[in-house]
């Protein structure tokens, strides 16, 4: 049987062959000779009964995994074959809840983007829980990964095998980051502020801002950002965003939450200052998500953020 070349190269790559630095004597069509040559060098190790035993066990293990995989997939496929047709407009999912959301959302919440109106107005309590999940995740990662401090104040990073923070001397990467980072940052802010008018919102925009910050730190080092974004900055930004969210939604729920007079003007649909509480709530969620993404990167790469405590 003859496979297409790219498929064979891909399969070799998955199997563990280095494809990209192509050697000069890549003689065989699919590098298969080199695999066979390399194999017997590794093999002669401790032959005997113990190895046979473990070999049998691992064969049993892979057979078991294939059987489990096929069983799970077949059971679920049988279930899928009894589900209603994909894309039909009278499926049980398409019920009166969705009709009500789409038809009344514009006059009740005022957001052009129905998804934003749904997750930040009708189901805002759910979104508050999600934002708290992010904060709790950062707390547990801090507990697990934060580097201790020695007595002289320097970071004591336990048994780190590579240097904690090193600026790459790659000119291509730096130039690309210099072009991409401001664009990404501005696009993230646009997505957050425009969340009630077009696709996006706090979650997407916050993730884009966080990714841009990570790109900046990776390319240019973290000295400048460390002066601004310390641990207490993170704490206060997240705390302020969550407490603002809670207070705003408390007011909204206190005044009746849905369709009743709350004193917050909805504005003209389509304008940037419209949709009542959705814009400030989007900003709060975006701040929490952006800080969370950067905090994850910073904790993973050097065990803490900021040069202060």
């Amino acid at each position, binding site marked *: 049987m003859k496979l297409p070349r790219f498929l064979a190269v891909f399969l070799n790559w998955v199997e563990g062959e280095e494809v990209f630095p192509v050697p000069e004597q890549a003689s065989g069509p699919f590098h298969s000779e080199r695999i066979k040559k390399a194999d017997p060098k590794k093999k002669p190790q401790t032959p005997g009964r113990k190895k046979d035993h473990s070999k049998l066990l691992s064969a049993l293990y892979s057979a078991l995994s294939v059987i489990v995989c096929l069983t799970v997939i077949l059971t679920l*496929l049988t279930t899928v074959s009894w589900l209603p047709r994909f894309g039909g407009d009278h499926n049980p999912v398409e019920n009166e809840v969705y009709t009500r959301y789409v038809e009344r959302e514009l006059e009740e919440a005022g957001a052009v983007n129905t998804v934003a109106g749904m997750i930040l107005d009708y189901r805002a309590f759910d979104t508050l829980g999600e934002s708290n999940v992010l904060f709790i995740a950062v707390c547990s990662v801090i507990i*697990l990964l934060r580097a201790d401090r020695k007595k002289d104040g320097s970071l004591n990073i336990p048994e780190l095998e590579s240097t904690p923070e090193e600026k790459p001397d790659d000119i291509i990467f730096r130039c690309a980051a210099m072009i991409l980072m401001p664009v990404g940052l501005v696009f993230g802010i646009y997505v957050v502020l425009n969340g009630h008018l077009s696709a996006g919102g706090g979650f997407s925009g916050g993730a884009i801002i966080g990714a841009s910050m990570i790109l900046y730190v990776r390319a240019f080092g973290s000295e400048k950002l460390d002066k601004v974004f310390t641990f207490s900055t993170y704490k206060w930004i997240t705390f302020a965003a969550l407490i603002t969210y809670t207070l705003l939604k408390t007011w909204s729920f206190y005044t009746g939450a849905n369709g009743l007079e709350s004193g917050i003007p909805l504005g003209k649909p389509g304008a940037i200052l419209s949709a009542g509480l959705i814009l400030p709530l989007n900003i709060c969620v975006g701040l929490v998500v952006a800080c969370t993404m950067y905090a994850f990167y910073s904790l993973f790469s050097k065990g803490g953020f900021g040069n202060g405590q």
Partner: protein
Amino acid sequence: MGSNLMTNYFEATAVICFGIGFTMLFLNKNLIKKVIGFNFMDSSIFLFLASNGYISGRISPIITNSSVSSENYINPIPAGLVLTGIVVSVSVTAFLLALTTRLYLRYHTLELDEMIRLSNAEET
């Protein structure tokens, strides 16, 4: 078998990826591979949910003109649920990776069998 397997191809793909991810999570010994399998399970469940909200021939629920009628737009509820789920899944991934890093710093291996053997050796 029911009759809708060939029309529900999005759901079928989702459950196949779910099965592969479940197997990786359940039967792979490398911890990084386990976390990646968990990610696959996340993504395929999101695909399953969002494909249930799709109605063929309709557009995404961003109300552009004044015709507010549910006849024109797809279901926004699964999209809203999945949107928050994607961001929570990255925090779960970060938590699992932090646990993996701690375990590696303790035992200097990523294989689960080796870890169990080392911790048993420490106890005795």
